[in-house]
């Protein structure tokens, strides 16, 4: 394991050596951003809308005391969404969708000698293939988290008002009540770190694939598993560091 971690850091070091022109990266980052960002919007919006809706219904179900005002429901939904659901749970889904795709793509390129073809041309394949993915991920994932947050709060609003759990006014009041804007900053810091971890770990796993189609599948699975573990550890460390 220590060997693997060391290899990962050497891999990260290669990202910044013998790079190509800025123009080359600009195009690649743009292409990756479209694949990563636009391609994930629908899934993220769908998942987060339902997450918000379910959180509202379940929070309301647990509010058994008449002394607790209704707007607390949306306050709880807001804190859960901003602090955990939007950045972290979506990161798990992001690892499953984008991480496995990155790993599969690089793994296939590796076993079909496309990576070797780049190396023979004198191109640093790690920098050329992986750096744009990491930059695009760090640019797009925070945007997905913002979309997820908005959709979750909207989902909560819809579920709460349609099922008559909470009035629209109470919901909006709860969303705005004692709002700490640092939590949004915190969520965005987390999203950048998670995006880096998912993209770099998935690329690392894909890049070092050896063998055939079976190994590409194994790499993709490992990419998702390792990314999720890294995200959860980073989540705890960041919470301790920035909120503790």
């Amino acid at each position, binding site marked *: 394991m220590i060997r693997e971690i060391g290899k990962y850091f050497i891999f990260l070091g290669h990202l910044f050596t*013998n790079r*190509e022109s800025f123009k*080359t990266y600009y195009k690649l980052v743009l292409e990756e951003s479209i694949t990563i960002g636009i391609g994930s919007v629908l899934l993220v919006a769908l998942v987060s809308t339902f997450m918000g809706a379910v959180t509202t219904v379940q929070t309301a179900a647990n509010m058994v005391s008449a002394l607790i005002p209704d707007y607390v429901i949306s306050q709880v939904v807001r804190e859960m969404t901003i602090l955990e659901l939007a950045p972290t749970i979506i990161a798990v889904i992001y690892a499953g969708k984008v991480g496995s795709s990155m790993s599969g793509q690089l793994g*296939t*390129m590796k076993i*079909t*000698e*496309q990576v*070797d*073809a780049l*190396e*023979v*041309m*004198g*191109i640093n394949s790690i920098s*050329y293939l992986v750096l744009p993915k990491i930059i695009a991920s760090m640019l797009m994932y925070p945007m997905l988290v913002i979309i997820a947050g908005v959709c979750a709060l909207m989902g909560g609003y819809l579920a709460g008002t349609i099922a008559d759990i909470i009035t629209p006014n109470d919901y909006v009041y709860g969303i705005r009540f004692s709002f700490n804007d640092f939590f949004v900053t915190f969520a965005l810091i987390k999203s950048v770190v998670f995006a880096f971890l998912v993209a770099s770990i998935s690329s690392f796993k894909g890049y070092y694939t050896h063998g055939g189609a079976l190994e590409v599948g194994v790499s993709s699975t490992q990419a998702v598993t390792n990314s999720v573990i890294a995200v959860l550890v980073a989540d705890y460390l960041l919470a301790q560091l920035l909120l503790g």
Partner: protein
Amino acid sequence: MIKFEHISKSFADRQVLNDVSGVLEKGKPNLIIGASGTGKSVLLKCLVGLVRPDSGHVYYDDRDFYNADRDQVIEIRREIGMLFQGGALFDSKNVEQNVRFPLDILTKMPYDEKQDRVNFCLKRVGLENVNKKMPSEISGGMKKRVGIARAIVNNPKYLYCDEPNSGLDPQTSIVIDELIDELSEEFDMTTVIVTHDMNSVMGIGEKILFIYKGKKLWEGTKNDITHSGVKELDDFVFANKVMNSLRGK
């Protein structure tokens, strides 16, 4: 000219190459032959720098590849074109983009000039009207031709071909061999071909290196391969039924 000296390479406790040396000449195809698993592909990878040998030197026109600084290694690599066994075309790019790729990345050529060069190379390998096709839409033989076009597009000084005939029918194999032979002469490249195809050996084997169990056992031309006096080489050459039928003649 490419010269390699005392190349050795082991993977774990298995020695794949054992003190292999040789000279690969300019303007003609140099064939590295041997049975599967003898280390010829590893030797090729050591020559292009995809696998670092445990010991030994590789010289590209007197430039020591493994002792050169990073810039010189990149400079040498940019003088190399390589045809991979499966073509190694980029799946996400069409034929034209694949061939243009080295020019896009490694040169500052204007777009029209690049396009002319791409069309010239595709025409030279006998491919026309396939510019916009994706690699998944073309046949194995066409993939090899596109691979050759991509390998020569940047005017390389050294051309490497790893099993150029694998997966091709005998007729297409001959066409590919002849194409590589013609291109070597036309562009004055040092061409290195790794193969175990006896048709290629007898067709374009101007210079042949026979590798057996990680060692170079024999060096010569197609004219003297049948009477080398090396048992291992005879076993390899006459394993082919056609060659065997000609043995006594």
